C-alpha cells in the first residue's frame, strides 16, 4: 500500500445515517489505513452546489478520489467487508 487515501463523505445534515456512516468510516480507517488517509465531510445542506461535481444522488455517499479508480460507496457503511472491497483495500473474494 503506502498510498494516501483521499476520502470524501457526503452527508445532508446531522441525520442518524450520516452520523453512523462517519463513525463507521473513522473506525474502519483507523483499523486499516492508519496514517494513510484524509477524510473530508461535506454537508450538502450547506453546499448543495457540490453535489453535481461528484455525481452524488444518495446520502450518505463515500467517495474515494485517490487512488484511482474513483469509487463510491453509498449507505451507512455498516458492512465493513463491503466497504473494504469498495475502497479496493481488499480484493473481491467472489462476484
Amino acid at each position, binding site marked *: 500500500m503506502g498510498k494516501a487515501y483521499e476520502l470524501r463523505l457526503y452527508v445532508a445534515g446531522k441525520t442518524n445515517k450520516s452520523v453512523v456512516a462517519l463513525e463507521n468510516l473513522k473506525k474502519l480507517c483507523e483499523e486499516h489505513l492508519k496514517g494513510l488517509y484524509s477524510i473530508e465531510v461535506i454537508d*450538502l445542506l450547506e453546499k*448543495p452546489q457540490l453535489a453535481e461535481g461528484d*455525481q452524488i*444522488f444518495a*446520502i450518505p455517499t463515500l467517495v474515494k478520489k485517490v487512488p484511482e479508480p474513483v*469509487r463510491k*460507496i453509498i449507505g*451507512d*457503511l*455498516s458492512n465493513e467487508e463491503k466497504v473494504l472491497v469498495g475502497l479496493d483495500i481488499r480484493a473481491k473474494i467472489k462476484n
Partner: protein
Amino acid sequence: MAKSKKQLEARSTGTIPKTLTGISGLDEITLGGLPSGRPTLVCGEAGSGKTLFSIEFIVKGALDYGEPGVFMAFEEKAEELKANVASLGFDLEQLEKDKKIRLDYVHIDRSEIEETGEYDLEGLFIRLGYAIDSIGAKRVALDTIENLFAGLNNTAVLRAEIRRLFQFLKSKGVTAVITGERGGNGLTRQGLEEYVSDCVILLDHRIINQISTRRLRVVKYRGSVHGTNEYPFLIDDEGISVLPVTSLELNHEVSSKSLSSGIPALDKMLGNSGFFKGSSILVSGTAGTGKTSIAATFANAACLRGEKCLFFAFEESPKQIIRNMRSIGIDLQKHLKEGTLEFYASRPTLYGLEMHLVAIHKAIKKSRPSVVVLDPITNLITIGSVSDVKTMLVRLIDFLQAEQITVMFTALTLNNIVNEQTDEGVSSLVDAWLLIRDIESNGERNRGLYIMKSRGMKHSNQIREFVITDKGLDLVDVYLTEDGVLTGSAREARMLMEQTGEVIHAQAVSRKDRELERKRKILESKIESLRSEYESAEEELNKVYVEEALKKQIMGETISKIADLRRGDDGGEEKNVHKNK
C-alpha cells in the same frame, strides 16, 4: 412573467390550472396543457420519443412561455443531449448561459458503486432543489428516473424515495415531466404510474407492415377532460407534432364561389363555372388515362389565378411531373419559381398513413395553399387497409374543408375488388367525382370522361371524349350515331365523312342555283321581247286611232262648210255659191 402566467391560466379550461407544453397539437388534446405544479408521467418504449418530449417541454417553456426549466438526465450526458437536440434548432448551450434552462446529468455507474447499509436519495433532492432554485425553474423534466433502478439494488428504498420525490416536486410547485420506460405488465417497468396520479401520457411506436407509426395517448388526466384517442405524432426537424383529429364536426363554412378546373370544356360541363371553392374532387381512372394531367391542369389554373397550390406527389418526382406536363403545354416550372406552386413529394411507404396525414397537415399549415392536389391516393393503399385510408381521407377532407381549401385527389382504378372499394369509399366523401374510362373500339383506346357526381351544381350527364393535345387538355363531344358512341379515329373518320358530304352537298346546291339563274335570265329576255312586241302592236293600234281621229275632224269640218253654203244667209256666202255655180 406574471402576465404570461395569467394568460396560461386564462387559456386553460376546467378547474385545474394547466401549463402549455408548446408541443404542437398536444395542448389541443389536453385542452390547455399539463397540470400545473404537478408531475406528469410520459411513458413509452425505447425510441418512442420520451426524451424529445421532455426536452421540448423544457425548451418551449423557456423560449415561448418565459418559464425556466431544469432538465435532469439519467441517460444521456449533457453534451450528448445538446448535440442531439441541436438538429431541432434548440441551442441548449445558449439557453443555459441565459439561465433559462439548466441541465444536470446524473451519472449512475454500477461498477463504481457499492452499497452498504441504509441510505436515501437526499443527495438527488438537494441537487434538484438547488438546480430549481438557482434559475427559478417552473418546469422540471426527469429523463428517465428508472435508471436509478439499474444502478441501485435496494428497490424498497428507491420506491419509497421516488414517492418522496414526487411529493418534493409538488411542494416545489414545478410542473414536471417524468419519463418512464415501458415494460412489464404496467405502463412502466417499475410501476411509476402508481406514484404519478395526475397525468399519464403514453407514447407508442408501432410497426405495422414494416412501417412505423408513432402514437400518443393521454391515459389519464385527473380532474380534466381530454382527448382519449390515440393520436399520431411526427418527429421531424421541428420536434414533435401531434395531430388532434377527433373534431369531426360537420359544421364548416361553405362557399358558393367556384374555381375553374383549367379545362374550359370541363367547366362548361360543371354548370359553366367549375368546382366549388373548398370542395373535394376525385379524379379516378385506369392507368394512363391522364389523371395527373387533369390534376396538373387544375394546379396550373390555380397558379395562373395567382393562388397558392400545394402538390403532393406520391408517385412521381416533381421534376418528372414538370417535364411531363411541359409536353402538354403546361409550364409548372414558372409557378415553382414564382412560389405559387409547391411540391411535396414522398413515397407512400416512407411512413405510415397517420404519419402522412400529420405530414400533409404540417405542410398545409405551413404554406397555407388555396388548392391542394394529392396524386395519387391509390398508392396509400399499399400501406394501409381500405378502411384506414378512408378514415385518413375523411380526416384530411374535413381538415381541408374547415380551412376552405379545394382539394383534388387522383385515384387509380384497376379492375380488382380492392380498388373498386377504395373508389367507393372515397367517392361518398368527395363533392365531385370525375371518372375517366377507356373506351376500346376499332383497335384503339380512347378516353371518355364522365362526371359521376358534382354536389350542388347542374352538371352535364354526357360522356365526353377526353383528349390530350400539345396545347393542353380538351373535351370533345362524342359522336352518337346509329352504330353507337364513336370516339378517337372513328369519330374523326365520321367527322371527315360528314365534312365531305357537306362539300358535295354545297356543290350540288350551287349548281342548282346557277341553273335557276340561267332560267331566270332566259325568262327575263323572253319577257323583254314580248314587251317590245306588245309595244309595236300598241303603236300600230295608236296609228289607227290617230288616223281615225284626223278623219273624223276633217269630215266634221267639211260637213259644216257644206251646211254654211246651203243656208246662203249673207252675200259672202251667196257670192260663194255663185261662184260655185
